[in-house]
């Protein structure tokens, strides 16, 4: 981590100073700032908040939202909710994994994409759905994947 990363964490910590049970929002905001939660970042948070590192790791690994590894430039979230499953989401994922040569949850070698499977993006009527960063693509078929990826 660079100097400015520590500053960013300091800002987050100041915001939640004195608030009961603030560990999760602290981790959420740190991740929003730094992209993922590095070992250094977690140790620094522990040092400052006096919460034992083991407890912080326990929380960070319990919740799927937290990432302990660097991520790609773009995040692709594939919906695996019920509506999307019924609408053939597994075929979309397979096409994606095949195209990007990654495993579920993995990041491409060129660090361009990280692929995550999530449960319901809340646009079930457009199933199957994937989201690249903040943009959702609905009513997908496997053959559309190439074109979508080409935009990034």
């Amino acid at each position: 981590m660079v100097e400015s990363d520590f500053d960013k964490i300091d800002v987050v910590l100041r915001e939640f100073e004195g608030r009961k049970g603030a560990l999760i929002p602290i981790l959420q905001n740190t991740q929003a700032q730094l992209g993922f939660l590095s070992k250094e970042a977690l140790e620094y948070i522990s040092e400052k908040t006096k919460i034992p590192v083991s407890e912080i790791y326990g929380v960070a690994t319990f919740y799927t939202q937290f990432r302990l590894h660097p991520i790609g430039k773009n995040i692709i979230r594939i919906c695996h909710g019920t509506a999307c499953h019924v609408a053939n989401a597994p075929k979309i994922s397979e096409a994606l994994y095949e195209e990007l040569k990654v495993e579920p949850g993995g990041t491409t070698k060129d660090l361009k994409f990280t692929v995550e499977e999530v449960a319901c993006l809340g646009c079930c009527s457009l199933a199957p759905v994937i989201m690249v960063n903040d943009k959702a693509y609905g009513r997908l078929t496997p053959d559309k994947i190439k074109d979508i990826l080409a935009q990034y």
Partner: protein
Amino acid sequence: MENSVRIKVGLASCGIAAGGLDVLEKVEAFLKEHDVKAQLEHTGCIGMCYAEVLMEIEDDEFGSTMYGYLNAVDIEDILTAHLIEKKPLTEHIVVSDKFGGKEKEILDYQTRIVLRNCGVINPESIDEYIERGGYEALQKVIKDMSPVDVIDEIKESGLRGRGGAGFPTGLKWQFAYNNYADKKYVICNADEGDPGAFMDRSVLEGDPHEVLEGMLIAAYAIGSDTGFIYCRAEYPLAVKRLRIAIEKAKEKGFIGKNILGSDFDFDLTVYEGAGAFVCGEETALMKSIEGKRGMPTLRPPYPAESGLWGKPTNINNVETYSNVAWIIRNGAKKYADFGTEKSKGTKVFALTGKIKNGGLVEVPMGMTLRDVIYKVGGGIIDNRKFKAVQLGGPSGGCIPESLLDTPVDYDSLTKTGAIMGSGGMVVMDDTTCMVDMARFFLNFTQDESCGKCTFCRIGTKRMLEILNRITQGKGEKGDIEKLEDLSKKIIKGSLCGLGQTAPNPVLTTIKYFRDEYEAHINDKTCPAGACKDLVKYEILEDKCIGCGACKRACLVDAISGEKKEVHTINQDICIKCGACMTACKFDAVIKS
């Protein structure tokens, strides 16, 4: 009065996903270019998500006119016709005062209490909420009712918890009220864990003040001054709208100190979840707010006695709170007119899957599943054969055609082996494999188990292994019995609802679709043609003209063949994605 025109564009998550922002931009540009005076607004989900993007125009000439299935490119023509030439393009209209519209019936079958403002008001405007009777109930409660009066009113209305279990809400408030303490909490469960359901999201995005008002009334009734809304991590727009709503309510004096001049204080914070299904369970949710790992704890003690930080806490679902203000304003009796003897009011469902009119619907309790699916939902896509409807997500079950006349109420649905659940309703046709559905849900619960109880942790894994085998064509005699046996043990040996209900999707599919299990196990076939390992894509020699479309569509280069010659699929490479079948215009690719 000057001719006033209001244009509303649906900008809930799915409206945005369907291109709502592009439409909005086009409308803005149009108004500017043609110098038309109109109030342009955002609204939430109107429920016709299948017809997104939606835009409503309200004016003196035509009243309300709702356009659907829009694309940014249509906007210019539609607005010119409607606003300038005054000759609306009826082919784009879905519902309208003047023109009827092809979708009007769908709304006529519904009763809107919870959703009455959704898609109608601008969710970021507190004034529009107030205009439609908002915060009147809060005023009534503070001025004219004691906490006990409020609790009695809610009890009389018959309102039951919409989070899944259906516990009577008034009684729950009573328990929290009865426990004396220096501090009490009110929590709104907006974790919406059922994957494939979005009722709560739509309400939060479309009418956040309705939820706040319900929480305020609950807080007043039980004597609490602090509340939390625990919102699912994947709902950034809902979080944003809630935060705006809280700010606005503070400005108006509905939240804060000495609310409406009384000695009632209330402070409210939105708390974002971090992606764990089990945190929808109330005791786990409270652990999570405390900043810990969200693991359920044994009840009793119930939250009403010892909840958040050990204090008496009332926790209800989003939709439960959304009914409260209406009940106070219109009276418990009027509310109890809707529904059946033991299930009063309405229920919101997220209708999805192989249904024509997928979206958000609110129907009176007691309507049959058949009416929800065929009248409100318009029936099955491509008029295929209905196979089952799934209710209650990973805790629920699949209901077959023979039980379609079951009324939607807590007790009747429980009798089928499914549950009311929180409102996910996924419709399946003959191309959906029921064993695969069971496997899908078990995969989900297995993954989301917090690991505290051995049976939930290991048992679901064993069940998943068996189901995986069956769907891969490696099922063995006795597997069904093994699944049933494991189910029993998991139900008995689990501490929280996640484990206790995890076997439901398996048990209901075995109960109603045993023949499908048997076909997979004995004949190694998947009757629905869905299980990948049991199907094969092939090209018919006599139909293939060698156009090469399939070859281009195949991502893994499994197809070979020269132009104008018959193509073939290399089964060792094929990942069975079906892209070739979609691509072939000559029906030469078949699935067997």
